[in-house]
């Protein structure tokens, strides 16, 4: 497995923007928070002062009906001014929102990376698009993107409504079956950002995360070049045995490993499984122990997931794991 200990811990936090889009929204947040806090303090203070200064009475005190005789002009003046101030505050918020919307729509898109994301119950299918079709490749649940270059993510769904949310980078967008949506973002600081499905999509909605690795462009291009390669043929006999186990068992009914005869697309593409930090859609570390448990009985880790249990002889399982470790 890839040694990931040197990388930063994944972040999933809207208050720590790492990209221009989240920055724009963050600025609007600061303005709005400030204004709303001010209003809250003023109105609450008015209420508390009213209570503090008003004389006390009880049920037997005669009520004051002077307001029924004529209008209360001073009171009305204050109410009108307060309403006017409230309206101005609302207009400020509206203008702020419109300006932020415009800023979000004006992300420069030259030299963009194009990713097509298809949401499934409960994992993310990704296809990196290119003008040259031979440079396209598929992966799942972990995206790498270059720092400083825009990324255009096309969003579709294979079943129910999902929502892509990577709070450090951008707001969210729904993946709706029958429709195609687009999310435009850019990472401006390197790091590992965690995203999560943000629209209730069924039993394991809670376990549908994805990782976004933002890295300098050269490292991104190196990663992409590697992803484009088909899986290397297994070197040692144990891995060869694992390769045979993979092709003989039900794995091939759902998974693709480019460079082998396994080409099904019902589950995540495993061609470069070993290059990913996590399994089960961002939920568990990608190491031997977890992978063994996942393959043997995915239901014990993520009940209801669409992958069946696989009763493998221990030697077969170890060989399979050794083979999967070669899929870097």
């Amino acid at each position, binding site marked *: 497995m890839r040694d990931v200990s040197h990388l930063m*811990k994944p972040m*999933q*936090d*809207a*208050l720590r923007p790492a990209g221009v889009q989240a920055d724009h*929204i963050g600025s609007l*947040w600061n303005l*709005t928070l400030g204004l*709303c806090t001010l209003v*809250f303090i003023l109105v609450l203070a008015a*209420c508390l*002062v*009213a*209570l503090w200064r*008003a004389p*006390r*009475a*009880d*049920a037997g*005190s005669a*009520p*004051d*009906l002077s*307001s*029924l005789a004529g209008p*209360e002009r001073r*009171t009305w003046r*204050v*109410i009108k001014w307060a*309403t006017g101030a*409230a309206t101005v505050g*609302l207009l400020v*918020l*509206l203008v702020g*929102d419109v300006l932020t*919307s415009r800023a979000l729509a004006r992300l420069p898109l030259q030299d963009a990376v194009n990713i097509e994301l298809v949401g499934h119950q409960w994992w993310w299918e990704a296809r990196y698009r290119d003008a040259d079709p031979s440079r396209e490749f598929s992966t799942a649940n972990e995206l790498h993107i270059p720092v400083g270059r825009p990324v255009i993510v096309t969003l579709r769904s294979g*079943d*129910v409504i999902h929502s892509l*949310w990577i*709070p450090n980078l*951008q*707001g*969210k*967008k*729904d993946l*709706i*079956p*029958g*429709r*195609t*949506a687009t999310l435009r973002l850019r990472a401006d600081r390197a790091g590992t950002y965690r995203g999560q499905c*943000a*629209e*209730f999509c*069924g*039993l*394991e*909605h*809670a376990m549908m995360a994805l990782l976004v690795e933002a890295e300098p462009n050269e490292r991104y291009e190196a990663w992409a070049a590697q992803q484009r390669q088909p899986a290397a043929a297994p070197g040692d006999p144990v891995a060869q045995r694992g390769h045979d186990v993979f092709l003989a068992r039900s794995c091939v009914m759902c998974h693709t490993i480019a460079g082998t005869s396994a080409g099904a697309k019902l589950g995540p593409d495993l061609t470069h499984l070993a290059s990913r930090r996590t399994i089960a859609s961002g939920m568990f570390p990608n190491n031997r122990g977890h992978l063994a448990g996942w393959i043997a009985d995915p239901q014990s880790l993520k*009940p209801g997931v669409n992958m069946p249990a696989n009763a493998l002889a221990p030697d077969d399982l170890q060989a399979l794991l050794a083979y999967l470790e070669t899929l870097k």
Partner: protein
Amino acid sequence: MTVRGDTDQRARGTWPDPTGPGLPPGAAQALERTWSDPPGIVGWFSAVNHKTIAKRFMVTTFIFFLLGGLLAVAIRLQLAQPNGKVLSADLYNQVFTMHGSTMMFLFAVPVMQAVAMYLVPLMIGARSVAFPRMNAFAYWIFTMGGIMLYVAFFLDIGPDAGWFAYVPLSGPQYSPGKRVDFWAQMITFTELAALMEAIVLITTILKMRAPGMTLNRMPLFVWTMLVTSFMVLFAMPAVMLASTALITDRLVGTHFYNPGEGGDALLWQHLFWFFGHPEVYLIFIPPLGFMSSIIATFSRRPVVGYPAMVLALIATAFLAFGLWVHHMFATNLPELGKTFFTAASLMIAIPTAVQIFCWIATLWTGRINLKTPLLFVLAFFAILLLGGLTGLMLASVSLDYQLHDTFFVVAHLHYVLLGGAVFPLFGAFYYWFPKFTGRMLSERLGRWNFWLFFIGFNVAFFPMHILGLQGMTRRIYTYPEEMGWGNLNLLSTIGAVGIALSVLLFVVNVLRSRRHGELASSDPWGAGTLEWSVASPPPMGNFPLVPVVHGRYPLWQQPVAPYHVTGLTNEYREVLVTSVADAKLDHRLWLPSSTPWPFVAAVATTILFIGSIFTPWAIVWASVPVAVAATVWFWPGRAITRRRVETEVQP
């Protein structure tokens, strides 16, 4: 000169006539007999007196509130720690679906209609609501629908697609079985009940006000119920259509929501939220009426700005129908359209702001009687205010892109629903409990109730704002430890326990006070509106002397001649019908007295609704008993018709 109503007179039943002889002998007993419910089991099912039905309705909705609260505690126990094992994923999804559905459909709107059903006739000087049997039918239908949903839940076939049941998840392909069908049919039950109650309230308010109670003199609470009821007429049909289309998609293969055959997943969202946004105002507007009633009484003065308050209610009602897309900002609808809904969502804050300013002005210029009802009402100014401000944040499309479907929204919705509706509702219970039962709730327990609720609420829900901003999405049954959300979730759970304890205190207060509470006079709070002019609890016919009204606060203002009405019989349930705007006399009507047919018809309708979950043919065969029941319900009796003809005066 300001004069408080004479409590002696009210106790003797001679108010508002200061020099008159009051009731003739035997009249009060005849009135009581005529309007009472019959005894025995059959009698219990035959009751149609609006106060009887309203009390049952309030108790039933409160039971659903308690059930929904227990579900909330279950959610909080599961989320208190990362990787919680209290509830499995499947059970958790059912629990949060049931919590939302219970609170929104089985508690929040119906309880407001229930309280109104009790108070509105008393506030407008009427002896009944306009359609007593339909009122009873609505109660039974509501209750049976709620029971159906819970039976399904306890049989482990409860709905699990969220209270909002987005398609395609809730459609036939991804939610097989009958779970979602029970949810969709529960909608049919509860929306039918709400629509009927709305018709009853509108007709009662417009046609049965005491003579002299022009629209301009109506209590603000009655205005809120009028406005809310009109909103119900336009909002509920949207969810009924949406859920009917969902049922047909699931049961007989229609394709409304199936993109593969020309349907659209967003059609559901549009229809649902066109109902769903006004729905939260159905919940929010009646408590604005509680606020006005309580603030006036406990500030010892009329609420500032009656016309502005009324216009604010009407403006809020209209605007509420123009906001629904703000629930759909994360979809791929056109951006320009979304900004329109931001503007509308911001604008609706203005009428609410006007109301808040008027209430604060009332408190500022009044003399305060700081009792428990007022405490609960004051919580609005902290909690609803904060919730409304986070609402402004969510109204912005750009901010919503980050905040939508996170715990920030959970925080917001609970701040507005509890701050704007539940706290004032508790204030209303403390305020009107003496009127309903004849006894005061304990003031000491009330204060404990209040402070525990207020503190528990903020401890439970404020951390959720932060959790949402820190990335915690909604409707997740657990979360990994490394996210760092554990501490705030634990804090929130502690707060939830505090809320549960405070509600327990309330229940204790109610049960103890029913037996041992201080006896209440007709007007223990020194209030100004008509419900306080009659005994606590009121006689079964509400008003021994139907008043003639000359001002907004009849008990505070000097009575003016003519003081009251005569000539209504006490031998039958006779009511006075007046004109819409000025409550001028129009005619008299005999309303139906007790009958079991609303209950029977509700049972027949329940069989129709539940049957059609399983087969479309149920609509055909089950409509026969419904038709029979409705026909017998309607069919007039010979004896009563003969009496009516004998006493008939043609128009």
